[in-house]
């Protein structure tokens, strides 16, 4: 598939001061070990990467805010977000930050309206970060930036224009949010510690190792379900009425890439969490990645074509099959399952 050039910052520069209580003595069991592995091998690196990439994007916007110049750093930030977005607990879930970073699907077309209104009013919120942190989530985060950088009605702005300031405000706000998430995950009493001390007397968030393992496990499954049902399901629409314009991030040609990165993140997550190599899970997820590469359709435009559509449908089905494999490879050996009420309300 086609790739945009991606800026990468080495992680090691940031992974310095993480304090973890991994598998701390009295609480260590298979579930606690699994949680500790996910935290150290998957979650913390993802959190730091997202913070680093959004910081780089902010810096890039300061030096050259124009759309063409910003695309690579934008893509690197979005890539990093795909490594983290499924971990919608703790600092990402707090204040609904996940939706502030990635407001999608925007079913009512709120993003272009919100951006157009800011631009028309030359709204002064762009000059004040604390004020900008309170504008509508439709005008913040990666999808607002996508309009500014990739949509023809927004992206023809010059250095020094209001739109340029707006882009700088969005990138600064995004980097701030990412920084808060990273701080809250990695500080001494942060969320990494909260997860890895599950069951300790002073831990009010996770009362047992099972709860922490269950919380992460739910995120693993939900992340894949979201890719199948939303990222793939929305553009598929129905056979009579395919909806290519409902594909996630089609403006930046990232629809297929986002599915692939979410699957790769799930792969890393599953490999870290499973007590033994999760053979079947990895096999299916690898198969999905191969299929996505073979598809060679970055924005899922081929949902409108019967053959392309079938291929995309199969990818969705294989992702769903991976959730069954995860139940066997991870849920069963760790003695955890999807939530009792979460999956079956009334």
């Amino acid at each position, binding site marked *: 598939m086609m790739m945009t050039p991606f800026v990468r910052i080495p992680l090691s520069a940031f992974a310095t001061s993480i304090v973890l209580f991994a598998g701390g003595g009295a609480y260590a069991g298979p579930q606690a070990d699994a949680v500790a592995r996910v935290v150290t091998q998957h979650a913390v690196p993802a959190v730091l990467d997202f913070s680093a990439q959004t910081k780089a994007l902010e810096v890039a916007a300061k030096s050259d805010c124009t759309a063409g110049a910003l695309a690579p750093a934008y893509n690197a930030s979005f890539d990093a977000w795909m490594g983290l977005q499924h971990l919608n607990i703790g600092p990402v879930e707090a204040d*609904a930050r996940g939706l502030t970073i990635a407001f999608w*699907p925007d*079913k009512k077309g709120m993003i272009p309206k919100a951006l157009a209104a800011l631009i028309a009013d030359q709204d002064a919120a762009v000059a004040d970060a604390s004020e900008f942190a309170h504008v509508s989530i439709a005008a913040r985060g990666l999808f607002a930036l996508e309009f500014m950088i990739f949509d023809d009605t927004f992206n023809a702005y010059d250095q020094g224009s209001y739109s340029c300031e707006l882009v700088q405000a969005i990138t600064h706000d995004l980097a701030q949010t990412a920084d808060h998430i990273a701080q809250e995950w990695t500080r001494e009493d942060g969320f990494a510690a909260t997860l890895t001390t599950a069951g300790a007397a002073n831990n009010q968030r996770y009362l047992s190792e099972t709860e922490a393992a269950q919380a992460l496990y739910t995120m693993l499954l939900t992340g894949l379900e979201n890719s199948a049902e939303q990222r793939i399901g929305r553009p598929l629409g129905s056979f009579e009425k395919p909806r290519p314009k409902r594909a996630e991030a089609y403006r930046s040609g990232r629809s297929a890439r986002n599915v692939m990165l979410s699957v790769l993140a799930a792969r890393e997550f599953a490999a870290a969490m499973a007590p033994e190599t999760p053979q079947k899970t990895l096999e299916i997820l690898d198969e999905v990645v191969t299929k996505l590469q073979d598809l060679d359709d970055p924005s899922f435009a081929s949902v409108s074509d019967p053959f392309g559509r079938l291929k995309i449908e199969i990818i969705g089905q294989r992702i769903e099959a991976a959730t069954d494999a995860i139940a066997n490879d991870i849920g069963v050996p760790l003695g955890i399952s999807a*939530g009792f009420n*979460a999956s079956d*309300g009334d």
Partner: protein
Amino acid sequence: MTSRRGFLFGAVAASVTPRLSWADAGNPAFLGAARDKNGAFALYGLSAEAQILFRVDLPARGHASAAHPTRPEAVAFARRPGTYALVIDCVGGQVLHKMQAPEGRHFMGHGVFVQDGDILVTTENNYAEGKGCLGLWQRSKGYARIAEVDSHGIGPHEIRAMSDDTLVVANGGILTHPDHGGGRDKLNLDTMQPSLAYLTPQFELEEQHVLADDLHHASIRHLALHDGLVGFAMQWQGDPFDIVPLLGLHRRGAEPVLCEAPLADQLSMKAYASSVAFNGAGSELAITSSKVGRIHRFDPDGTFLSAISRADVSGIAPKDQGYLASDGQGTLMSIDMDMRVLNAASDLAWDNHLVSLPRLG
């Protein structure tokens, strides 16, 4: 002359006939259904501090229950499309009576006592005719079914009684049939029309509210009541990413007020509210979303107050000035200024609802 048999009968009668009150049941404050680690379902009585006082086995997954206003007696309902309801003696923990839904009907999981506890009203699906109904059962006649009335909508779910015995019914609007998907397939999503209905103490329709056309997918399911103010919680049957209200407030004679959190919080609920309750003080109310593990608190004027995260949270009921909430991981927690775990019986998965019991001596 007193025979031995007669004497014994007299002794038992003497110990039973004096009117037992909720105090004799150890003053349980809440009822909740749960699944235990062996996969068995039971109803539990909980103390004011959420400790388990008694357990009664249920034949299948439970849902909510109806507490008698004065006697230590409760009726536990099967989950849709169950046809059993058990009358439970909350002192001894025995099943006093098993109620069976009549042919062509099943229980919807909720019910309420009226007329000083002599009449139990149950929400039912009259699937034979594809409409909702209320069953009336008379306690003083051994819980005989004495009548059936219209619920004035398809899919009646929770029902509450106001202080003057006016009934409030959440007609969820969704048509189901036990022959389709185990009674849980939704058969009329295109045409569903949920409503909030008020029935007089004589079971006549007094007032009914239907939301705007573009909200016809908002299934009105659960109710909370405080001082004449009704909170109704909704479950959206459209896209879970739609931005729709999940809580409404209503006072008889007025128009419903729909409440939403700010955009990002509102979207975080996945368009689903599991339960609704006022806090004990009546100064706020809250909805839970088990789908995302989130509680949203609102002022009775409709203003959003705050969100709390707790995985798999579903049951919520008034406790002291605040709330008691339950989750599928075995936790019972009090929520007021802060959240405090009162009971972490991790081998129990608490089911959808917690029911507050009357606090009479």
